[in-house]
């Protein structure tokens, strides 16, 4: 697994990583995953009847009513997804035509994604609005609200998984074409989402320490980080074994041009630093700075994970390129007798 093993004919013309989807799409995938993951964890916290202490929250008055902000720190996921969704539109050649994709939901995963995200954002914002608005008639604990919560929860899962399916649907890139990618993005979405929630409530006493809710949340987040690491390893291992271009992708990511993104961004920022800092923080209760730094690094790590995987996507080799590679090799081993070599020397 060294860069030197890559044949010179590769990585030059056709085996370059794809350059169509770059940073903007990575931001979109990241915010969609993190927002959905945060909503999933927040809804679970709500369902577990964790007693929250909203006393630190500012009180906002609107038209003579006081808004109830107690559930905002655990239900703001859809807002993040709503911020991320326009990034996909920003990446389009002709922005306003995104409406065409919305009008054709059955055609492809890009179109289905528009629909999944739209439903999740609308349902999530309705639930958030319901928790914030002070009107009595909105608050009866009816079955309808519970059903709406369950549907939103399912669509949050769909959103987190969809970010991986969008890439998986690209069959010509072996690194992406695996069921492990949606799983990886789901786990990463959950870990970054839960960490974002911890950060948003950090140092506020929103989660009463006595009840241990924050401890459980942080423990869960650490478990998710470990699971994410295992899935990432399996993903790279499978990518390395599945095809020549999958191998090239992994080499590119681990040893090639993307090594800074992988080792610096994903491994150090996303895994090692947060785990070490959180372990230290567990011995120093009440040290919010350490958790804040660890959380911020982990969130950056989640972004670099998506960026690295996007930038390392190398297409499958078609038979004609394989033939060219064989011819190139045969000429290299027997240069004088090959007329093509002579022509190459004259032309080159």
């Amino acid at each position, binding site marked *: 697994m060294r860069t030197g093993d890559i044949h010179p004919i590769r990585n030059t013309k056709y085996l370059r990583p794809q350059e169509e989807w770059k940073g903007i799409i990575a931001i979109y995938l990241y915010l969609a995953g993190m927002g959905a993951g945060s909503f999933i964890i927040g809804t679970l916290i709500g369902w577990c009847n964790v007693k929250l202490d909203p006393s630190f929250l500012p009180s906002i008055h609107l038209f003579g009513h006081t808004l109830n902000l107690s559930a905002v720190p655990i239900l703001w996921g859809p807002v993040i997804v709503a911020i991320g969704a326009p990034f996909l539109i920003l990446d389009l050649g002709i922005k306003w035509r995104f409406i065409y994709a919305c009008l054709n939901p059955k055609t492809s995963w*890009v179109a289905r994604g528009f629909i999944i995200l739209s439903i999740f954002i609308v349902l999530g914002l309705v639930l958030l609005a319901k928790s914030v608005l002070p009107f009595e008639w909105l608050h009866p604990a009816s079955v309808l609200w519970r059903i709406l919560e369950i549907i939103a929860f399912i669509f949050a899962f769909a959103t987190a998984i969809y970010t991986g399916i969008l890439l998986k649907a690209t069959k010509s890139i072996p690194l992406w074409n695996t069921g492990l990618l949606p799983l990886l993005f789901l786990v990463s979405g959950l870990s970054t989402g839960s960490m974002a929630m911890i950060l948003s409530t950090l140092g506020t006493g929103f989660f009463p320490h006595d009840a241990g809710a924050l401890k459980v949340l942080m423990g869960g987040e650490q478990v998710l980080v470990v699971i994410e690491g295992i899935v990432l390893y399996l993903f790279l291992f499978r990518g390395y074994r599945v095809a020549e271009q999958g191998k090239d992708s992994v080499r590119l990511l681990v040893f090639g041009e993307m090594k800074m993104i992988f080792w610096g961004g994903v491994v150090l920022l996303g895994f090692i630093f947060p785990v070490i800092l959180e372990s230290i923080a567990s011995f120093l209760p009440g040290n919010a700075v350490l958790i804040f730094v660890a959380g911020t690094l982990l969130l950056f790590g989640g972004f670099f994970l998506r960026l690295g995987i996007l930038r390392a996507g190398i297409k499958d080799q078609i038979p*004609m390129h394989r033939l060219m590679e064989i011819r190139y090799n045969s000429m290299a081993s027997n240069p004088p007798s090959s007329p093509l070599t002579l022509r190459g020397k004259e032309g080159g």
Partner: protein
Amino acid sequence: MDEKVLIVDHQKCTGCRLCEMVCSVFHTGASNPSRSRIKVIKWEDAGLYLPMACNHCEKAYCVEVCPTKACHREPQNNNRVTIDKKLCIGCRTCIIACPFGHPFFDVSERVTVKCDHCDGDPQCVRFCDVKAISFLDADKVSMARKRESAYRFIDSMRQGR
């Protein structure tokens, strides 16, 4: 069956890139190879040149992934796969999906473009001096390949004697 396909003989190609030039002039009016629907891939140090055009695949990934079905097949028109520029949103999913790296993003028009056989008269075929590109009936292509395989088999048999 009167379906015709573009056939490339890479051994004849000299890498002059005239095909790219005439393609861009025909489709855009500009003499700009970067806007061409055919690309010549070069391995200069080996003297290998490979003109790459759309294969109009039977199972076309670009059609599968297009979110607006701007990329579609036209059975009435030589069964070609083409992109309706009025429907294309420029998401470039088709470019990522195509294993041949074919559809291209036109930075001027902000949409994806691809080979459409120049409406039945491919300019790259007309202008290729060395006849490295030809536009043949799909049946004949298959026949030519079978014949080539047979000759190769005969040669190997002769060498074996």
